[in-house]
Each structure stands twice: as C-alpha cells, then as structure tokens.
C-alpha cells in the first residue's frame, strides 16, 4: 500500500464550531424611589351671583336727600358656589349727555347691609359712598374693599336731584331735561 496515497485518499471533515463570545455589558439602570411626588391641582372659579333691580324712571327733586325721600334701588351679590373670593364694584354708566346730566344735580348715595334692610335709616351718615353725576360715561359708585362671601351682601343705591342746580335752561331747552343710564357691577378676584 502506498502510504502517501492512503493518506491522500483519507479525507477528514473537520467542523469548526466557532464560539464567538460576545460579551455585552448592560449599563445599570434603576428606577428612582418617589415620595410625595403627586400634585393634585385645580384652578379656581370666579363667578358672582348678582341680582339686579327693576328700572328706575323717576327721581325726586329734594333740597336734602334722605333715605326715606330719595329713590332707591337694591342690588345684591354673593360668591357663586365654589368661587374664589373677590371684591365687588357697583357702577353707574350714564348714556345721556344732556344739560341735566352735566349739571351735577343728580346725587347718589350707597349703603350696604347683610340683610334686606338698609344700614341707612334716617340719613346718609352710614353711607359707604356719596357723590354726584356730572358727565356721561362709567363711574364707580362704590368700590367695596371687603371680599364677597357666599352670603348675600345688599347694596342700596339712592338717587335724588338737587333742585338748586336745576336751571331754567335745563327745563326750557328741548331734550335737555332728561337723564339715562344704568346700574351694574363688576368684580375682581382677591389675590395674593
């Protein structure tokens, strides 16, 4: 036997199993431990329950205004349910621009109460605001410095005309003897 040939005819099959060791290093990651980490948050409401008054179409002419003799209209306001606190301003908007309007003859007084009975009884010494109207436009009659509450607060707005300021021009010039306007209110949230 030819050894070389024998060796030559022996064919070996060699399987190589190659182990590829892929070493992967995982970077450590852990969750943080959370305490006090929930914030339940709401934003407030700001709505006022306001009740207006019926139309005023006649105002007396007086030498001295008193609660008993002046014309009065009562409005009320309170915080709506779940509303944040706020402060009310009672306003008067004057539409007319007549001689009567600019004469300053129209007087007002504002009294407040927590009941439907005015704090002003025989005179206006307890009034929280007094003044006169002498121009068209918007006027703050009373800026209440106290927060509204969920209980009604009543605002009594009195009007009368000062006879000494009503001139012949007002009475005799066409269309100069009238006044028109309206009572309304606004409020702003109280804030820190």
């Amino acid at each position: 036997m030819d050894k070389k040939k024998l060796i030559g005819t022996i064919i070996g099959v060699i399987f190589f199993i190659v182990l590829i060791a892929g070493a992967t290093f995982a970077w450590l990651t852990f969750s943080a431990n959370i305490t006090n980490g929930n914030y339940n948050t709401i934003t407030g409401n700001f709505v006022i329950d306001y009740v207006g008054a019926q139309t005023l179409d006649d105002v007396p002419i007086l030498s001295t205004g008193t609660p008993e003799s002046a014309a009065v209209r009562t409005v009320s306001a309170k915080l709506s349910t779940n509303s944040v606190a706020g402060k009310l301003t009672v306003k008067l908007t004057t539409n007319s621009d007549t001689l009567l309007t600019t004469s300053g003859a129209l007087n007002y007084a504002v009294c407040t109460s927590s009941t439907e009975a005015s704090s002003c009884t025989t005179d206006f010494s307890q009034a929280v605001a007094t003044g006169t109207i002498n121009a068209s436009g918007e006027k703050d009659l009373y800026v209440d410095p106290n927060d509204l509450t969920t209980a009604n607060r009543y605002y009594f707005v009195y009007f009368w005309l000062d006879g000494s300021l009503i001139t012949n021009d007002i009475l005799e010039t066409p269309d100069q003897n009238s006044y028109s306007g309206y009572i309304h209110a606004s409020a702003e949230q109280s804030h820190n």
Partner: protein
Amino acid sequence: MKKKFIFSTIIAILIIVVIAGATFAYWQWMTSEEEETSISLKVEGDTSNMSAKIDGGSSIDINSLIPTSNCLSSDALQKEITITYINNTDISGEIVANLDITSFTANNGNPTNEQLSYLKWVITNTENSCTTGIIQSGDFSNVDYHNLPQNLITIQNNISSNISTETQIQPLYLYIWLDSAYEHINIGNNNTDSMQNLNFTLEWSGIIRQLG
C-alpha cells in the same frame, strides 16, 4: 487495491451526507431530567450600590391656582424637590427626573394653547425665588392633554462614580402659577372660562443610570 477503493468510497459518501444534510435514522441520545442543569434567577435592584430618591415636597394639599403676579403667593404652587442618590459603582452616571401630567380635566371647555401659555412653571435653585437661579422655565402651552401622560419637565443631573453614602444633588424649587396677565371676564352666572375649574395631576418619576 479494492480495499482502498471501498474505503475511500465510504469516506466520500460520508462527506456527501454531511454536506448535503440528508436525514438518516441514526441513533439519538438526550439527557434525562435528572441530568438537566436548572437555571433560575431574579432581577433585583442593587440599591446598596446604586439608587435614587425623589421627594416632590408634599402630596397632601390640593393646590388651587388663581391668577397671580406673584409666584410665591398662596395662589400659586411652590414645592421643594429633593433628589438624593448613591452610586457606589466605578462608572459615573446620571439621574433623570420627569414631571409628567397624568390627568387633565377641563370642566369649562377645552383651553387653547394660547390660554394654557399663561399657566407657567419655573425650576430654580433658589428658595423663595422664581426669578433667581433659573434652571428651566416654560408653560403648559405645548401640552397635548388628550394624549396622556405628557411630559412637562425633565431634569437631568450628572452624578459621579464611587459615591457610597446618600448624596443630595443641588436643591431644586418648583413654581407653578396662573399668570395674572391672563384676562377673562365671566358674565352673569355663566362660567365661560376654560382656564377655570381645571383639574390636573402632576407626578414625578425618575431613573438613575450608569453612562458609558
């Protein structure tokens, strides 16, 4: 001569078989159950070596936001965020803290992005100040509150290696307020303000991890 031929023929057939992958019913063998090596493991946080804590400052109160120009007022929200960590590994890392919006209910109609831009937040490193030491600031205008949770704030801090005792990163202070520049007038008994009576929840989460 014949023997050599037969031998090399058998070898050749074996080779062909192996290469072609044909199946023949050769005897098989497998391990018994008794011979199997069981492997079971658990993943556990190695908190003795690597952990982080985030204290968001108090969850007890319901924070009620009312328009204000003062981020320190009781109409705004202020929280002190305390983040502590241990990293007793040889690899430095980072802490990532996220404040997410996880619930959002608009009870008066959906606020617009413009309206939400008045709901502002600031993170500073200064107690009692939302203007000094500002780290990040923003507002809620980009919140897609129909797809929650939404990430509001992400704070990232690098941390050193070989820190074996609990260490605090710099104190952080969160301020959230509804800016008083936001104007709305409710008329009469109707609440038409989408920014009023909003309910939302913010939640902290975070991770501590090694970095390459």
